[in-house]
């Protein structure tokens, strides 16, 4: 309980920057509450003074007074809801910002453990729940306290016997509220977990739609989704039943109690202790008094429920972030770019087996260093080590022989490395945005140079929007090879000392790949290039090759040296080389053919495009089977014209179909 209070105070302190607005809003609420009390009192005065004494002046005055109060009350309650919304929204932005930056700065290891869907629920749903209760708890608490105090004061003044009796029911209410709050909390925890699972499911399936389709698993996946949704439904039903029980008990308690009070109040009038006006007022007030008490209960319940979300969000906020801006580290400035692995071994922290063992490796500036080896050998892990996504279990990595990677500021380290990773990620946005990702200073000419070097410039210029064409979600879909070339252009455009290509050309044909390497040679004079590849053709470009096998470096040397050794590399080369000579021939032909086809298609398709009018006519004629007369009426044209349009459109359509067929 103590620690919960601490957590709450921690979260409520988020409101501190808005203390002035909060205070003003509370003031408005207070005024609203006080004025809300006035109406029954006015009624009381009307019944006890104005009517019996036929006092017309008093009547007029009281009505005007009521109107005045109404105006003020409306104004202040509107202002308070405006301010509350403002606080609520800014608070939610603040909290999301805090959460999201923290999330992005968590070490990679943590991102492997958590699923995207789960994190999505935390950043959306859970934060909503927290913001709701943080923003609302204090105002509602104060409002209800005020209301309760005012109501009690007035009631006590009118008749304290009755009021004290009325209050005796309150403890019962709280006992049952506590009981229900606990149950609600348990349920909430379950449903947030279930929600996370569902999101994760959606996310995973939607981003792997091709695999699902190719295995014909659409129905299977839908069924699995339905299972999960039914699970959620069960929880919602439990929640509903609990809610129904809860309000049933609430209502019963309140009805019994107010009936008893109504009887007692009547008794007090009949025995002459209070006037009719007074009993009218007090009955209204006692009827109102259960509202603040119920509000206390609601707040208590929502607060306990929000602890589930608070725990889930805190779980991430409390994780140690990467040493992103550690002040004890070196700031890299003007490096040569030499990378040296000194007897590095690595295993994932909870794993038994080493993924890399005793790696000694040097990548010199101005050279292309290649890593080759079977898949799963740990090549990409070497890259992760250089970027410090993971840290060596043993040994050390040095930059320029002087800087131990462990002691280098992460931010400056990553600023010196440009990477094309194995699975290329293109963000949705324009091509330009993607190329300029992470660049503060924009240099259009350099960007075009990079695109040319990556052999993608021609493709981009051929697009209708050029560099501003939208790609990714909702935009143009790029092929694997196009994405890779774009990623290479992006990496080259960053123009930094160290360039890492992790199977960056795997989806490209050998011709394009060779062209890119040719371009690279001029661009990378002083750079350190680290390249992972399987292709003998690209390995030929490397100045030094490391072969990784069974977690260790089994061979290293230049291409010629390795071939002379007749070891692993020789075998590997033999296996791949023959095929690729023929493949290249074949591929060249194929590419030429494809290019021709695309050009032709683009040219003819433009001329052959159907106009909206033609489409409309075709649709009306063929799909809806209308006569020329009807169509001409609908479109306001001569039937003869329609028939001409129909014929030419039909011709065009047929030629379009033909073209598609050829392809």
């Amino acid at each position, binding site marked *: 309980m103590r620690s919960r209070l601490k957590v709450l105070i921690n979260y409520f302190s988020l409101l501190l920057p808005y203390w002035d607005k909060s205070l003003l809003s509370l003031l408005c609420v207070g005024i609203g509450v006080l004025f809300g009390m006035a109406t029954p009192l*006015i009624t009381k005065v009307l019944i006890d*003074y104005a009517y019996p004494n036929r*006092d017309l002046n008093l009547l007029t005055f009281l009505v005007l007074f009521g109107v005045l109060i109404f105006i*003020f009350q409306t104004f202040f309650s509107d202002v308070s809801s405006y301010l509350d919304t403002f606080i609520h929204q800014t608070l939610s932005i603040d909290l999301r910002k805090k959460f999201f930056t923290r999330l992005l700065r968590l070490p990679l290891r943590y991102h492997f453990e958590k699923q995207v869907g789960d994190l999505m629920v935390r950043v959306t749903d859970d934060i909503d729940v927290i913001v709701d209760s943080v923003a609302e708890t204090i105002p509602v608490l104060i409002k209800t306290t005020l209301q309760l105090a005012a109501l009690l004061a007035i009631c006590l003044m*009118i008749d304290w016997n009755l009021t004290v009796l009325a209050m005796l029911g309150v403890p019962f209410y709280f006992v049952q509220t506590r009981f229900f709050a606990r149950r609600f909390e348990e349920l909430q925890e379950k449903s947030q977990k279930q929600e996370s699972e569902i999101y994760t499911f959606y996310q995973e399936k939607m981003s792997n739609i091709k695999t699902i389709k190719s295995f014909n698993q659409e129905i299977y996946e839908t069924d699995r989704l339905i299972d999960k949704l039914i699970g959620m439904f069960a929880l919602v039903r439990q929640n509903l039943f609990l809610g129904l029980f809860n309000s049933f008990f609430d209502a019963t308690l309140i009805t019994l109690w107010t009936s008893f009070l109504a009887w007692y109040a009547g008794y007090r009038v009949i025995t002459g202790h209070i006037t009719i*006006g*007074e009993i009218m007022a007090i009955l209204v007030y006692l009827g109102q008094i259960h509202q603040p008490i119920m509000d206390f209960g609601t707040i208590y319940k929502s607060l306990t429920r929000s602890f589930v979300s608070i725990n889930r969000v805190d779980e991430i906020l409390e994780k140690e972030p990467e040493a992103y801006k550690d002040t004890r580290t070196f700031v890299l400035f003007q490096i040569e770019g030499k990378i040296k692995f000194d007897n590095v071994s690595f295993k994932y922290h909870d794993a038994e087996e080493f993924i890399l063992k005793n790696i000694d490796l040097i990548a010199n500036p101005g050279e292309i260093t290649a890593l080759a080896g079977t898949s799963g050998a740990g090549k990409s892990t070497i890259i992760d080590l250089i970027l410090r996504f993971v840290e060596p279990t043993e040994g050390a990595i040095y930059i320029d022989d002087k800087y131990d990677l462990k002691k280098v500021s992460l931010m400056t380290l990553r600023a010196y490395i440009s990477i094309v990773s194995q699975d290329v990620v293109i963000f949705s946005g324009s091509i330009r945005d993607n190329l300029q990702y992470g660049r503060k200073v924009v240099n259009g000419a350099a960007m075009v140079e990079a695109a040319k070097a990556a052999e993608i410039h021609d493709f981009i210029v051929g697009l209708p929007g050029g560099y501003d064409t939208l790609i990714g979600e909702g935009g143009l879909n790029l092929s694997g090879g196009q994405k890779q070339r774009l990623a290479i252009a992006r990496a080259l455009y960053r123009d930094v000392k160290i360039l890492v290509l992790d199977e960056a050309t795997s989806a490209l044909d050998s011709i394009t790949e060779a062209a890119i390497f040719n371009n690279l040679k001029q661009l990378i004079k002083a750079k350190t290039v680290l390249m992972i590849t399987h292709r003998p053709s690209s390995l030929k470009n490397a100045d030094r090759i490391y072969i990784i096998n069974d977690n260790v470096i089994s061979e290293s040397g230049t291409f010629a040296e390795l071939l002379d050794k007749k070891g692993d590399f020789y075998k590997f080369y033999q296996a791949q080389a023959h095929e690729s000579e023929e493949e290249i021939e074949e591929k060249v032909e194929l590419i030429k053919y494809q290019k021709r086809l695309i050009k032709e298609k683009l040219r003819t398709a433009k001329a052959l495009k159907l106009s909206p009018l033609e489409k409309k006519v075709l649709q009306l004629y063929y799909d809806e089977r209308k006569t020329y007369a009807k169509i001409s009426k609908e479109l306001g044209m001569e039937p003869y014209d329609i028939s001409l349009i129909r014929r030419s459109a039909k011709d065009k359509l047929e030629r379009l179909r033909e073209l598609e067929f050829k392809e």
Partner: protein
Amino acid sequence: MSRLKNLFSAILSQDMAKQARQVEAITVLVFVVLLCTVWWLWQLKLDIIQSVKDGQTITVKMDVFDLLLSRNKEQ
């Protein structure tokens, strides 16, 4: 009608932080008006006819707040 629309779009396009400041200022102003009104009502003594025993009435001077919170045991 179009004026109303313009007003709405003007209100909605305003900078949020600035608007909140303005709302605060207006509220404080109205609050001062409210205090003045309450003070004025307090000074305003009403003539209230009160019945006493035997159907007789007397007139007393009261402000509206006294009146609202008064107890009328004599009836």
